[in-house]
């Protein structure tokens, strides 16, 4: 099995977490699993980076937390987007789109 895991582009982890939480509130492990699935195994986030990012986002007021029971009855902290978080996600997505387009243009220029 070839390891195709790649490092997450600097500074995009926050955006990816926000995107993940845009669908529904989730606990830490859920976020990690979702990111891995959606990237088809390309990104694997370890707990260290994840929780640092979660604390940062929370302190910026982009996400909020709540203790809830999981499907199998375990207590876990669920994170959800705040209104501000949603706005930030929109603006970051747009910015990202612009940057990717620009980078692509540069790379494809002959």
């Amino acid at each position, binding site marked *: 099995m070839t390891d195709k895991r790649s490092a997450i582009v600097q500074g995009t982890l926050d955006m990816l977490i926000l995107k993940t939480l845009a669908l529904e509130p989730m606990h830490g*492990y859920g976020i990690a699993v979702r990111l891995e699935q959606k990237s088809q195994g390309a990104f694997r986030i370890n707990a260290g980076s994840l929780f640092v990012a979660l604390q940062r986002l929370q302190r910026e007021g982009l996400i909020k937390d709540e203790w809830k029971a999981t499907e199998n009855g375990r207590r876990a*902290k669920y994170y959800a987007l705040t209104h501000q978080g949603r706005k930030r996600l929109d603006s970051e997505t747009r910015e990202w789109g612009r940057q990717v387009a620009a980078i692509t243009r540069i790379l494809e220029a002959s």
Partner: protein
Amino acid sequence: MPRLRKLLDGLRSLLWGQRVSRELDEELKTFMEMATEEKMRSGMTRPEAVRAVRLEQGSAEVTKENVYASGWESGVERIWRDIRFGVRSLRKSPVFSAVIVLTLTLGIGANTAIFTLMNAVMLESLPVSNPTQLYRLGDNNNCCSMTGTQDGGSFVLYSHPLYEYLRDHTSEFEQLAAFASYLEDLSVRGPHDSASQPYKGEFVSGNYFQMFGIQPSVGRLLTPSDDSATAPRVAVMSYRTWQKFYALDPSVVGSTLDIDGTGYTIAGVTTPQFYGDTLRSDPPDFWLPLAGEPEQWRLQSANVEWLYLLGRLKGGINPDAVQARLTVELQQWLGSHRDVIPQRDWDEIPRQHIRLTRAARGVEQMQTDYSLALRVLATLSTLLLLIACANVANLMLGRGSDHQSQTAVRLALGGTRGRLVSQLLTESLLLAVAGGVAGLYVAYAGTRALLLLAFRGAHFIPISARPSVAVLVFAMLLSLATGIVFGIAPAWMASRSNPADALRGSGRALTGRSSTVQKSLIVVQVSLSIVLLVGAGLLTRSLRNLEGQQFGFVTDGRLIVSLTSLQAAGYTEEKLPALYERLEERLPQIPGVLSASLSTYSPLEGNNWSEYISIQGKPPDFSGTAPSWLRVGPHYFQTIGTRLLQGRLIDERDRPGAPQVAVVNDAFARRFFPKENPIGHYFGMTDIGHSGDYEIVGVVEDAKYQDTRGPAYPTFFLPLLQVHAGEPVRGWVSTIELHVAARPENLEPGIRQAISEIDPNLTVLRVVSFREQVARNFNQERLIARLAEVFGMLALILACVGLYGVTAYVVTRRTNEIGIRMALGADRRKVLGLVLRSALLQVGIGLALGIPVALATGLGLASQLYRVKSYDPAILILAAVTLASCALLAAFVPARRATKIDPLRALRYE
């Protein structure tokens, strides 16, 4: 909003650290559990899954640490932990900490005290609104009355007509105010007072308070309409006078006081902080309008220049342009008032100009007078602080070595050197801040002592010893800087230690390096100390020379009584002879008084009158300084103890109507009669027409009346009442000299009573012993010398303590070695020599380095020194010997302990 949230979350985790950490724990545990279950679902056994997760995710502790470290509160917490650790470790060695804090307290306190003074004198602005808009017309402090052109062409003193001209023609000033360049001694009597009391007063223009922009505490301040000959006389009282003598009674406003014989209604009281235009001891108690000046000719005459001018520029005006314009106006005015300048100075007129200088600090009298003293003191106290720092660094190093194994363990367990250094620096800063806080108390007491020393004889000094914001900031920064200065060396040494060496149990691993640093610090201390000691020696010797010099009079058993002006007490010229006669008759009858005399002023009280003279039969010579003169009564010279050289003294014969005579001093005789006997020659004041006025009948020895350092001024003495026919008496008595048998201090009540018996309107300004009056001339010198002595002593003690500490430390460290040496046959003398040699070497190097610096310091002080060579060998040797012997004594104690070492026990030591 997010910022606030960040702050709140951080605070939450700081304050409820444990709960936050528990939450994170639980969250992480869940995370790991879920990951493990996931792995188990794909077929791993539980132990396999746990292991895989841990490999993937890393340790939960590290994750926690990462999360934790990413918040801002971790930095705060780390510092807080360092502080708590520091406090704990300092409390474990209370003596050590106390010695360090005490040393720092003295160092920081001394510096803060001197900064408090410097701040008040050199930096703080006048307590008025927008002081930066204030400008003064003139750049020096020449006083008090002058005619014609001024020193170097720079106008400083102005006549009243010139002031009015400049005020009315310079529209760039919002207000241009004038005030007398000197304070007046007033005698003031309230409606219910039985006798007049002496106060200080200043004559000011009507717009003076408007110019400063200050508000009254009660009543109102002067206005231009009060400053006219026809307006009712009103005065403004200072807040301090109102508080001290009138108990803040608001009914003072509107009441009428008798001030120098004129009724003045008190218009109001100034703001509490206001002390006038000049920072000085005993500032004005009353401000009176210029129009109230008793000598009305001063207001009309364009000849007499006696006012200082200070104005507030309008906003946005360029002072350079105003300065140029003022000079043009001055030239115009002088052009239309040629008669103001004596003909001999006419070619000086084009050079006359006005320098506009910043006056945010008012007239910079004290700033000029004390700048050198303050700079010397600042240097001395900085030296002391450096010595204290070296000493403390040394103590810290010694302890650092004792804590080597602890340091080593921490390093071995993975503590970073950065954390170690920050821990040790925190400890140093803690000590420094403790020293700084305690230093503030020392500074407060010290500043009060400094003020008393610096202004001996003053009743009130408008400088507060209480630390201001600037002083607090200074003390804080100084403490931090100090902490870093003395903390760097120990921290650096510790961070360089090698854990492996230390753990191997070799207690001597660091000794070499750290004791070299310690010894270097001793060398530094010794060299700084010798500089301080030599400086103290030079300044003390100089002060002693000044105070002990031959003044040309005798201060022992003499009293000087000063009166306020006789005009103010209602005297006219016709009444003077009777008053003088009664005083001369009554005063010697006071029990304990041997003889009494009267004069216009007394030696070294800060007064000087001078006048050009013409000598009969010689061409007039107005070059050089005009000789000084005063009027004296019979027995004057005997009473103050000035000896007669030839001829006779002024006595009872010399009454009005008798032949007019003068006594001159030796300097006068040498200057005007270099090759002749002056007795029998005639001279007079001012021009040739008066050259026959006085016959010289005696020559007295030189006595210093004005300048304590230079030679006596050429001086002539005239009888009290002899004047040229048809002229008024210039110079009324204001001083009484008494030669007494008893202790001078005990006589004051008797003297006051005798004077009030003669006339209750006479106001005694002060009664001081002649010795005290002379001593007050040396306030600055005494201040500097006393402080240099104290600092020198402290430096000596600190150097000895340092040397003692280091020697004791070295002896402990070398116990082993000494034991071996003794076992191998070294006797006690050898051991003693071994230890002392090292101490002697440090002292020797310190002296070798310090003496050249001390010599340079002596040169720097040369202008302060009186009859002391800046390289005075006796002082140098004395200082070096004192330092060396004290240091050796300090080293001898531990050295002797070394000789008592029992070789057997020493070998087992460690």
